[in-house]
């Protein structure tokens, strides 16, 4: 066989192969064997993995009922913004996805309006908590269904507090500072991340609001960071860092504080209940020592900025109606209850009636969690949530402001730096509608 014949055969075969491939691509549709109706859902890797197992189980049950297939894909929460952005940009991907922060505002024009679903579920479930509703209600309608929220209480080691002579965990941020100084001397510092992770901001919003400080004014546009109140918050952080925490808080990721309390070294963190759940699951003895208490208060009351998650449906989805049915299926009382149990009280319902669940009473360490709903706000409060608020969070500007001040930058200069960064985030605000 000559070389030229080989070459021709090769070229012919590859041309035919390429031709078939291109024709398939140009057709823009899957071949006939893959045409069964498939609903796809992009979610996060839940901090309590059993919750994802339960979600997949319910997806299977729905698939049987609706005679379709449902695929639930999960990925690390920090990678989700990029994945969602890629799907928005390419107008292709999953039918529905787990929204977080201000995704519904960022992608407002690309998401299906869910007014009908929200209205129906709201009436059945005794109404939505206002903070959960605000995160999904854009000027052009409901672009997400509030799915669940994650309480952000204080988590403390009872043994360390007892050893230090404290009867109860801190009721205020100032009390935390006083107790933290003693606890650090005892070898059990407290810990709040001041780093590039989402927990750092969850706590900052809470501390700032409790002290009457703001990030944005009520119009949602005017930066409100430079103020005496913020200066007080920064001074509080500086003192807490110096006298009650270890420098490691400057390097934490979202799991840093979990490791800190579970290691037995830390005495207090501000975090969802995931460390306790992890300790229970792994049968760690420290589970007995860990307990929770409501987020501390400040001169301006108690306020918290819990993560609020929702579900959105892309306009490019060809299965929008099916996706709406699936959302309603997930909200059936028996399904939602099973999901709360699977998450071991990590997932909090955004509907008032669903919040009436035996799991909160079953374990005294969970009893105070539903109360967290009373002082929760969307980030950006007193302004409305917006994509600008998400950019402020994504760029960790308040955590950086505090870290700069701790690093020696004068407080005023640190606030001005932060104000400049916030102004930039607001300037880039998308036009709504």
């Amino acid at each position, binding site marked *: 066989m000559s070389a030229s014949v080989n070459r021709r055969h090769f070229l012919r075969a590859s041309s035919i192969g*390429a031709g078939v491939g291109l024709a398939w691509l140009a057709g823009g549709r899957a071949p006939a064997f893959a045409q069964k109706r498939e609903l796809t859902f992009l979610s996060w890797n839940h901090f309590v993995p059993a919750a994802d197992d339960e979600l997949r189980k319910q997806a299977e049950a729905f698939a049987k009922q609706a005679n379709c297939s449902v695929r639930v894909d999960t990925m690390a929460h920090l990678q989700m*913004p*990029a994945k969602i*952005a*890629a799907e*928005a*940009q390419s*107008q292709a991907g999953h039918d529905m996805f787990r929204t977080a922060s201000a995704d519904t505002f*960022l*992608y407002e*024009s*690309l998401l299906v309006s869910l007014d009908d679903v929200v209205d129906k579920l709201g009436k059945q479930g005794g109404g939505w908590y206002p903070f959960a509703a605000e995160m999904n209600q854009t000027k052009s309608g409901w672009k997400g269904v509030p799915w669940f929220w994650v309480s952000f209480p204080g988590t403390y080691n009872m043994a360390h507090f007892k050893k230090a002579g404290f009867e109860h965990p801190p009721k205020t941020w100032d009390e935390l500072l006083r107790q933290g100084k003693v606890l650090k001397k005892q070898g059990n510092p407290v810990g709040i991340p001041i*780093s*590039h*992770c989402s927990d750092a901001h969850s706590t900052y919003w809470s501390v700032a609001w409790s002290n009457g400080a703001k990030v944005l004014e009520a119009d949602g546009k005017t930066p409100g960071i430079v103020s005496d109140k913020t200066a007080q918050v920064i001074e509080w952080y500086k003192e807490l860092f110096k006298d009650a925490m*270890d*420098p*490691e*808080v*400057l*390097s*934490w*990721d979202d799991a*840093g504080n979990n*490791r*800190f309390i579970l*290691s037995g*070294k830390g005495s207090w963190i501000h975090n969802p209940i995931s460390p306790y759940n992890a300790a229970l699951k792994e049968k760690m003895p420290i589970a007995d020592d860990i307990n929770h208490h409501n987020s501390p208060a400040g001169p301006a009351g108690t306020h918290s900025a819990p993560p609020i998650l929702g579900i959105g449906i892309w306009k490019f989805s060809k299965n929008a109606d099916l996706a709406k049915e699936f959302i309603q299926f997930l909200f059936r009382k028996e399904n939602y209850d099973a999901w709360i149990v699977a998450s071991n009280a990590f997932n909090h319902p955004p509907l008032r009636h669903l919040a009436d669940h035996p799991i909160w009473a079953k374990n005294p360490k969970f009893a105070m969690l539903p109360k967290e709903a009373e002082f929760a706000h969307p980030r950006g409060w007193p302004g409305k949530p917006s*994509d600008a608020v*998400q*950019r402020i969070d*994504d*760029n*960790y500007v308040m955590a*950086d402001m505090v*870290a*700069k001040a701790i*690093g020696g930058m004068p407080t005023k200069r640190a606030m001005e*730096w932060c104000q*400049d*960064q916030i102004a*930039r*985030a607001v300037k*880039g605000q*998308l036009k709504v509608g």
Partner: protein
Amino acid sequence: MAVGGRVLQAAGVASAGRLARVHAWWEQEHVFGYGLILPAFVLIGCLVAYPFGMALYFSLSDYWVGSPGQFVGLGNYREILGNEVFRQTVANSFLFTAIALTGKTVLGVWLALLLARNLRGKRLLRGAVLLPWVIPTALSTLGWGWMFDSLYSVVNWTGIHLGLIAPPGPNWLGMPNYAMAAVIIVNIWRGLPFFAITVLAGLVSIPREYYEAAEVDGASSFGRFRYVTLPLLKPVLAVVILFSTIFTFNDFNIVYVLTRGGPVNTTHLFATYAYQIGLQGGNLGQGAAISLFMLPTLGLVVFFQLRYIRKE
């Protein structure tokens, strides 16, 4: 080589008409040659040129994820230049690249000289040296993350037990200078095999006679390195440094996994900051401008280095 229809007819083979003409056209040297490179050209066009063109366009427009923007000229570039975090990112990138590149060059040449010796288990050693280069960066960086962890740092533990570090040891990823040192160390660790193996290839191609002649002339080992090895390695080194400059400037994984640009943006590089602004924040225009900012400088570096290599 080309066989046309007329030749086929003359040879008594029946012409297949149109198909034969296509065959004849296809088999012309210039058509066939271009035909062969066409697939590669299409691939480069689709996977390199098109995204590059789009990035260039994004950087000149007010483009947000999912919402096409208007042409704004150099507005994005002006905006990022006014941003203190970006200016810090530029400084970080130069510092990171300069130190990492110097480290990789010095250690790479040193390692190559060691590997060039006739040691027992030479092949195994040469293979093992490549490991950091072969392991997926995200995975190995996670390992480094644990080594630099604030609570469980094996680096600190070892240092403290050897009496080299005062307890509790540095907070590697939480203090600006240490964090920069950490990402540079990991970058050097990862890039070293590329340097060492490429330089080793250059070393083994140097004829033994030069060294013998130098020895006869009484050159010391340093003299042989200075006046024989180094001049003959220059072309190889120039190429490796060129590639490594580009790779190091554009590093993403190491910083993203270890520090996410922190503490206080002191380890942000162009790629990580562009990701934060463009994909996490949705501002594709500014994100593209950040990632393309160094293009002219890098272009000049490549131009001069390639010219130097050609001269050599």
